[in-house]
């Protein structure tokens, strides 16, 4: 009991993860018409959460690099070697910070956009934050799975309750798609844990232990397939992406921002942290297929975005293309590409998040997102036009803005290892410019297609406040990327070294568990 209190009150990961969920509990007892109080309370909680995230990151940023930090591992279901073990390292820290940053922004952005059941909305949002933070930080695979699933339910509610017309269809589709992948991953995970238990003589779901499990290629392929399927649905990779446009279009603005900014990263994070390091040989074998899908996603997403007549759909398909870049970088297995992929995950959260916010703002005013009804907004809404152009250019990858840094590093890094497919992917950058500039042209410039566009009120202070931090970061990362790249480098280097050492040796004929202290690559057969 004392430990629990210490963990909750200190500057710990436990506090970071569970504070939002615990803060949601009192809301259950608040009167349902006290909307103003609920909003203020949620805002304070979300700022506190951001403060905790920054405080934690700052405490573990040593010499400009994130050191791996943990609260320790506590037995949870000791009979099966399952422990409560959270670790923040250079890979998870940026994503945690991004999630914590988007929370208050989403609260501010939802201030008026959410018209019904604000209390329930706040509860869902806070539970969702606990779910995603836990997923990014779990270093026990069972715990990871639990958080991965927990984050589903609140998002399902957010889409289904506060979404657009076809919200229920979109919410159920989102849920079932993710569930299919994750349940297969659960079976694969159980299989791994069981192989580990039968070889090592004791149960464990700990990441560090399961990393030592060296499986024959035939087995690795199946397990990798299950993990990759779960994560590829989440990313989403073509052809498993069909849930995404529905979910994005129907979700309320806040939901779209979190979905694009954070939830999709669970997939790419899953590849980087689990699918690739745990099954390196299978990943190598599947690389041609996955690279093909990533490149297809980049081009296909861009082409489909091009023909959209609806701002939100366009931004949704642009996510497919952008996440394709991230996947390409991850599959390149190269330090530069990985650095680019990691920073691109953050970039996508910032710029796509901002674009979704802007789409939401125009929708609140004009109740339409169609190009046919918009156009010429720049005259009535100069501030809106500025932010839209700014975010679109960041998303396109204009030098001096953040998108350029990520895409450039990914392309440079992956060309070294992947070769010509990267050339195809490069066209995606061009296409991004085409469709995003088309969107900008059709909305803020161009002829005024509807007289209402002449009298739309411009953004107010609250809305600007939600956008400014995102814009500042986009510019900052674009101009001075080093402080955003360097802190994560040690963690990426370590993961990469381990991966490369593993694939240098062929996959073993029979399953074995490598000894913990032995230098990587030296195999020792367990009984």
């Amino acid at each position, binding site marked *: 009991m004392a430990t629990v209190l210490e963990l909750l009150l200190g500057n710990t990961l436990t506090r970071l993860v569970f504070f939002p969920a615990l803060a949601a509990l009192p809301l259950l007892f608040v009167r349902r018409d006290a909307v103003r109080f609920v909003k203020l309370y949620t805002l304070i909680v979300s700022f506190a959460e951001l403060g905790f995230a920054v405080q934690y990151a700052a405490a573990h940023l040593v010499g400009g690099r994130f050191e791996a930090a943990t609260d320790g591992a506590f037995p949870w279901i000791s009979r099966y070697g399952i422990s409560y073990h959270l670790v923040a390292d250079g890979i998870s820290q940026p994503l945690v910070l991004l999630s914590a940053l988007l929370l208050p922004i989403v609260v501010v952005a939802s201030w008026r956009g959410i018209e019904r059941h604000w209390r*329930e909305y706040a509860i869902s949002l806070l539970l969702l934050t606990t779910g995603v933070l836990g997923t990014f930080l779990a270093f026990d695979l069972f715990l990871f799975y639990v958080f991965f699933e927990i984050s589903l339910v609140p998002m399902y509610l957010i889409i289904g309750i506060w979404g657009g017309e076809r919200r229920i269809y979109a919410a159920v589709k989102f849920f079932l798609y993710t569930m299919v992948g994750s349940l*297969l991953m*659960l079976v694969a995970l159980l299989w791994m844990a069981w192989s580990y238990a039968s070889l090592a003589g004791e149960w464990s779901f700990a990441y560090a232990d399961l990393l030592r499990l060296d499986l024959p290629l035939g087995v690795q392929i199946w397990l990798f397939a299950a993990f990759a399927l779960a994560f590829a649905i989440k990313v989403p990779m073509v052809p498993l992406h069909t849930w995404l446009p529905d979910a994005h279009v129907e979700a309320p603005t806040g939901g779209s921002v979190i979905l694009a900014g954070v939830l999709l990263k669970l997939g790419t994070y899953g590849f980087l942290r689990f699918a690739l390091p745990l099954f390196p040989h299978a990943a190598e074998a599947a690389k041609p297929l996955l690279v093909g899908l990533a490149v297809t996603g980049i081009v296909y997403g861009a082409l489909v975005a091009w023909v959209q007549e609806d701002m939100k759909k366009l931004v949704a398909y642009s996510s497919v293309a952008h996440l394709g870049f991230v996947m390409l970088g991850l599959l390149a297995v190269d330090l530069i590409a990985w650095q680019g992929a990691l920073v691109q995950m953050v970039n996508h959260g910032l710029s796509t998040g901002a674009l979704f916010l802007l789409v939401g703002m125009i929708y609140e005013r004009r109740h339409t997102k169609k190009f046919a009804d918009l156009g010429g907004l720049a005259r009535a809404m100069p501030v809106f036009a500025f932010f839209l152009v700014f975010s679109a250019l960041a998303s396109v990858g204009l030098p001096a803005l953040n998108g350029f840094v990520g895409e450039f590093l990914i392309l440079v890094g992956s060309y070294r290892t992947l070769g010509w497919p990267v050339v195809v992917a490069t066209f995606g950058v061009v296409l991004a410019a085409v469709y995003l500039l088309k969107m900008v042209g059709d909305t803020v410039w161009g002829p005024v297609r509807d007289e209402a566009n002449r009298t739309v009120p411009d953004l107010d202070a609250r809305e600007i406040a939600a956008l400014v931090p995102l814009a500042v970061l986009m510019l900052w990362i674009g101009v001075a990327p080093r402080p955003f790249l360097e802190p994560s480098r040690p963690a990426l280097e370590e993961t990469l070294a381990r991966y490369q050492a593993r694939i240098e040796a062929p996959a073993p004929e029979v399953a074995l568990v490598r000894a913990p202290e032995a230098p990587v690559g030296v195999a020792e057969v367990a009984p």
Partner: protein
Amino acid sequence: MTRADLAAIAPEVLLAAAGCLVLLLEAFAPGLRRAFTALSVLAAAGAGWLAWELAPGPAFGGLLVADRLTAVGSLIVLSSAALALLASQGYLVRERILGGEYHALLLWGACGMLLMLRANELLTVFVSLELLSLCLYALAAFDRKVVIGSEAAIKYFLMGAFASAFVLYGIALVYGATGSTFLEPIADSLLAGAASPWLGTIGILLLVGGFGFKMSVAPFHAWAPDTYQGAPSPFVAFLSVAPKAASAFVLIRVLATVFPEALGTRWPAVVASLAVLSMVVGNLLALVQKDLKRMLAYSGVGHMGYLLIPLAGLDLGPAGVSTLTAAGAGSSWTPVLVYLAAYALMNAGAFAVVGMLYDRPGEQHLISDLSGWGYRFPLLGLALTVCMLSLGGIPPTAGFIGKYLVFLHAVEHGQTWLALVGVATSIVGVFYYLRVVYVLYMKEEVKAPAAGLVIDGWGKAAVVLAALGTLALGIFPAWLLDLL
């Protein structure tokens, strides 16, 4: 009968006596009716305590056994009884059928189940089966005004009588083949090859069928939807869990006698096919139901399929064939008991909510009637959501832990394919459980709640206990696992 024997049936004696007391009070002091629920819940709690404190070992010359597993099983049955009793008060008041018979029958039914899950001899199994069955038949028809209720009870009774006959005939054949009704001698005799294999096999198949009926395992499930629909909802919270738990115990014991490898590999295949059939049939039929109670009935068929997965790879730990103690980490008892505990909580919660929110029993309990009620009844809506998520196997709930253990057991015993079938049907399950959640929160209200609904403190207590228990077991499963 020695003193020790008497002590060994203390929980059952307490339950039977409490039932008689309630009945006497009903006759001589009907003014105390409103206290019956409290009295019976107390009796169930007392019996639970006694069952927990029971000295391990055989009693009545080996007719009954007691160990940690039966203690946990008794607690599952009794908590399901207690939750059903709590949820019943408001229902009985609303339907104007509050009377001591209800509580007495429920307590006696629980008494039969406690005996059955501890029985180590087939005739004792049969006698306790009859005790619990007769109580359940009567309870199913308890609301005499409801025509469909009587129909439900008649269906249950006729089919149940068949099943009992199956069980009895099976016992007779097994006795004919092996010369004993005690489980260990039957196993020895089968192993030694002394028994007539055909008689024994048919006998055991009949037993499996009979208990499959009580557990509503496909293809013996046809009674469940009709009976659930017509019977009083809070009672269904009991009917849908406790007899299944007790039957699962008997089934494990019976199967343990025939599972050793000497008898070939056909038994695992039989159980596995029942499991697959139940998972597929239950989940697919639940998918198309519009009536919440029928949906829960079919989903229950699916859940029994999951429960059978561990039985298909039956592994009773290092201690051997049919000893019932010593559950190792790989033991099949662990997933079965955890799954039952989870099922008891989440199903009781769901039926308790159904009992409170639907008036006019016997008519349809349309899921769509709940549209938008999640905001009108925040507590009940939230509890029902937790129960549905748990039934769907989504963490951090008890239902997820149950599924995790069941699938892990399958993987551990080389039956990964069963886990994959389970995963596929779970996804179907998630679809229809989610429908309840979206109806509650995402649809506009289509129907105002009837004026006569009684949502009392007892019922709320049952629902809150069930939902919190579901969450607690999902977040701290070690607490239960360490008991096993």
